């Protein structure tokens, strides 16, 4: 993968940006401390408390009062206005992003770790009995032929039948992607081709023909872009060695958690393969100095 180690990039400083949110918090902090000090004697009857005791109580009370605000600062703005959404879109589309972890949702670092594992992974998928058997079968096959697990194994020769990663595997593979925003759609560009996500159209069409990227719709909720995908082909896997059915439903929750870091809380739903929704959080870091590239062959 042709990536470079991301250098700290100064994020936009407008409304909704990380810096803006931190600045806003500091302002609230100053105001709250002033308000607390003026209200303290009458509200809490603490005026007569000795100074050393006040010195302990003041920071503790301020911390309790500000706890929700700091939690909010970590998750950025609570309510998105059209302008703050534009700021986020601008910030996200300026560079490419790449997954920070391995290609496994379950927590394995790589294929070797998966094959050599003796214990359940850190975040084991809640498999149904039917799919538990399938997973064990695929793992046994992979012990004989390791390439059967590798999503890129067939991609070295043009026309060899290399399959696209598909959703949701594409969200964990270490391949840079770029968000592109316009008023009615979000497009994700990568070597996989493009993924089209329609904004605010409400529902998916009926009778979808299954594809690797499926049919995606999205909307902004506060500072979080929620992407809902159905119509996914069962030819791909959720992660190496983990198949899914054609009833797979993936809900992504994208938000910015730092100047150069995005978080995606992925909810994977498949009534045939999973006993209950599987929730996994992935992070992505900004990659500077590269541009979208086409896939050399299918």
């Amino acid at each position, binding site marked *: 993968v042709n990536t470079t180690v991301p250098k700290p990039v100064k994020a936009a400083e407008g409304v909704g940006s990380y810096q803006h949110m931190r600045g806003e918090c500091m302002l609230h902090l100053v105001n709250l401390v002033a308000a607390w000090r003026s209200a303290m004697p009458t509200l809490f009857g603490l005026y007569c408390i000795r100074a050393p005791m006040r010195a302990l109580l003041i920071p503790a009370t301020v911390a309790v009062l500000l706890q929700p605000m700091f939690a909010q600062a970590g998750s950025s703005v609570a309510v998105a206005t*059209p302008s703050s959404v*534009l700021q986020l879109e*601008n910030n996200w*589309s300026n560079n490419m992003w790449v997954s920070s972890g391995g290609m496994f949702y379950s927590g394995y670092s790589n294929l070797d770790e998966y094959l050599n594992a003796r214990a359940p992974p850190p975040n084991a998928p809640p498999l149904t009995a039917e799919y538990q058997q399938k997973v064990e079968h695929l793992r046994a096959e992979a012990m004989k032929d390791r390439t059967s697990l590798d999503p890129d194994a067939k991609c070295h020769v*043009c*026309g060899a*039948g290399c*399959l*696209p990663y598909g959703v949701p595997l594409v969200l964990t593979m270490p391949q840079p992607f770029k968000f*592109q*925003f*316009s*008023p*009615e*759609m979000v*497009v994700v*560009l990568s070597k*996989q*081709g*493009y993924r*089209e996500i*329609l904004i605010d159209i409400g529902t998916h*069409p009926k009778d*979808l*023909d299954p*594809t*690797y*990227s*499926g*049919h*995606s719709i999205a909307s902004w909720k506060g500072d979080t872009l929620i992407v809902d995908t159905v*119509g996914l*082909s069962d*030819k791909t896997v959720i992660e190496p060695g983990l198949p899914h059915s054609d009833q797979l439903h993936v809900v992504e929750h994208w938000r910015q958690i730092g100047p150069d870091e995005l978080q995606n809380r992925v909810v994977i739903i498949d009534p045939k393969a999973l006993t209950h929704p599987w929730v996994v959080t992935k992070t992505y870091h900004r990659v500077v100095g590269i*541009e*979208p*590239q*086409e*896939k*050399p*062959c*299918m």
Partner: protein
Amino acid sequence: MKHEPHRSCGLLVKAGASSCGCALALIAFISLSYAQLADPPAIKTTVIPLTATQLEALNRKWRGIWEMKEGQNDFSGWKTVWDWSGGKANAANPPPLTPKWQKIYDDIRAKAVQGENVVDFTSACVPYGFPGITFFPEEFQFTKDSLNILSWGNSAYRHVYMDGRGHPRDLTLSYNGHSIGRWDGDTLIIDTVGFREDSILDTGLTHTSQLHSIERLRMLKSNDLEVEFTFSDPEEFVHPWVVTRTYERVTQVQISAAPDCADNRFTRDESGASIMLDSAGKPLAPTSQK
């Protein structure tokens, strides 16, 4: 660009400057010319960013799926490769080939008439590349600084930089090339270079890496789009080859990309030609050219 320094020199003379001043201007002109030679493709222009309202209006105007109108064939005018193999008619708009490339073209045609599959690179699911990709329906997405042309041909896309940059000097060759775009009134001009040599320009016709394409896209009516292609290749053509195509908006409802080669919807028949399959895996009519 080269005329500008001459005019500057003339103004200097009119202003009563000495011959020394004109000589300095001449030196400056020579320096400028060499500088241009050292960096020929990178022509940066200043672009005024679109407002959010303008961007929304632009996307609304170009929204939907655009499909080539019926009755249009290859750039040269052939209907299909099968038609061509039968040798029924001459091309309506033959490429102005140099003698060397005319021979290459004729040899491929002769083999095709013999039944050889020599023109259909896409049967191996190799990307169609530009301009072959323009045979497929496509969508346009305008962003703050780029245009994405989303094709229904193998989920390929063209990323067109609209931020005023030029083409890079050390360009990596690709199937779709490197594209920069700009507006000339209501006409969108897309300039593309940097093509790999193993993609198709037209049925039975490849090109060199020197291929240079200029597209002029113009909305004739609300649902009619005209695209004028001008192909230049100093090794292949004796003069630029101009082809005009028209597209129509087929629906206002946007749906995901169609199943494609990546979805295993293509296979080969006994002769090696590509055949598209329906969702049940049954062969549809030969569709390698569209």
